[in-house]
């Protein structure tokens, strides 16, 4: 039997899976983008409701934190919903049975959702800046910051949903807890307000660093030690890929 392998074959499979993902999700993708904008910009606005009267600095903090909210919405809600729906419908079993390397199928899913999240992130930022009347200074680092953040969130969301493997549990966790997770995350307020143990937890989790990387790309002088933030995001992405490789490659 002639086993097909090699870079050329992988790239062909990857291109075919990209077409498959875009075609299979064509009804769901616009909804995904819409939901992301509504939730990302919505969360930024909600923080204002809870606080009541905002100082100028607090407003800048909230606006520059809003892209992180859009990234997390796409990665945690959007990707998890997509993965669990495919689990319930048995789509993953179908995809794994296709004559394409599983890594190509996963890479295609990551590509589609990473790129798809970007317009939503930009619109969220624009809406939040408009709502609070804040002017931003966008640096050239915004492009790599957006892509790495979105890739990290997509990868972690995908791997988490695949590891939990129980659609009801994954959805319950995501729906009921997403806002609480965001509330306790030092994205919309300085990390110094957290109890020390929780701040330490957030120095390991990716959410704080995601917020830092994105904040630095649209403001000046608020963020320091940026290299560490990039390194942590990259490490989480790599860990999620390792997890995805394990969960996707094992036989059942």
């Amino acid at each position, binding site marked *: 039997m002639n086993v097909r392998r090699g870079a050329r074959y992988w790239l062909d499979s990857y291109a075919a899976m990209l077409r498959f993902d875009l075609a299979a999700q064509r009804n769901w993708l616009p909804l995904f983008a819409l939901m992301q904008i509504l939730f990302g910009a919505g969360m930024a606005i909600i923080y204002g409701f809870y606080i009541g009267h905002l100082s100028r600095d607090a407003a800048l903090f909230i606006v520059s934190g809003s892209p992180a909210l859009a990234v997390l919405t796409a990665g945690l809600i959007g990707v998890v919903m997509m993965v669990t729906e495919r689990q319930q419908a048995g789509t993953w079993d179908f995809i794994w049975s296709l004559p394409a390397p599983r890594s190509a199928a996963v890479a295609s899913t990551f590509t589609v959702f990473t790129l798809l999240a970007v317009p939503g992130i930009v619109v969220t930022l624009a809406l939040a800046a408009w709502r609070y009347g804040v002017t931003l200074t966008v640096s050239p680092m915004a492009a790599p910051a957006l892509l790495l953040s979105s890739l990290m969130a997509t990868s972690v969301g995908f791997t988490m949903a695949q590891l939990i493997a129980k659609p009801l549990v994954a959805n319950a966790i995501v*729906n009921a807890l997403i806002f609480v997770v965001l*509330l306790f995350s030092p994205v919309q307020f300085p990390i110094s307000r957290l109890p020390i143990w929780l701040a330490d937890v957030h120095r390991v989790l990716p959410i704080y660093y995601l917020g830092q990387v994105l904040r630095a790309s649209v403001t000046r002088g608020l963020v320091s030690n940026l290299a560490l933030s990039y390194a942590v995001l990259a490490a989480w992405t790599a860990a999620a890929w390792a997890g995805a490789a394990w969960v996707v490659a094992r036989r059942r």
Partner: protein
Amino acid sequence: MAGVKPAGSWTHAYWRMVAWDFADLRLYLPVLSAVLVLQGAGLALGVGLLFGTVPRTAAVFLVTGAPVMNLITAGLIFEPQLVAEQRTRGSYEFLQSLPVPRSAAALAWYTVALVTALPAVALTLLTGVARYHLDLTVTPMVVPAMLLTCLTGVLLGLAVAHGVTAPMVAMLLSTTLIFVMTGFSPVALPADQLPGWLASVNQWLPFGPMATIVRGALVSGVASEVPRSYLVVTAWAAGSALVVAWAQGHRR
């Protein structure tokens, strides 16, 4: 066929459905209860982080609003998700075909939702009171207020679950509703911190009035227009009951 009646009395059918729901969801309910505790207590503690020092009004609204979210979430969010999964699996038609009065099945689900929510409500309240050092003046009206709030949430959830037949749309709708409840309704924040138009709209939506009746029974002098809120909530309960009756009664 004339004369075919469900086996046994209505009460008997009710208890059988309660037993059925608990057996069916025995693994799921403890997870839901835990998720509710994290949601309620998490909100009460998390919003506090947005402020340097938490103003007393904000604390009162947070502590009394968070348990209301538990009550609403148990009925309004989990039921559509459960039914969406039943539809995807195909067990929905089977459950509907059981020889049990629909009202008994609905009341059984209300019982299950109460049992799931009440421990979370108590823990959420205790956490909030301990964190912000508040003195609550609990009146006996807390019993009807919480029962009616949970009942309305359950009926709204049943209306979404049985009225919306596409599982994906029902899931998306329940996620959107939890978002509206958390951020765009005066549940855990004073209505005057919302823009004027949104505050007016909320006078006629169910979430704000639900919070008002519960808050009125927990603290004195903060909630206003309590009788009006009872009317609004009751109207939503009755309207939802009609939708449920219609959605379950007509033939497909």
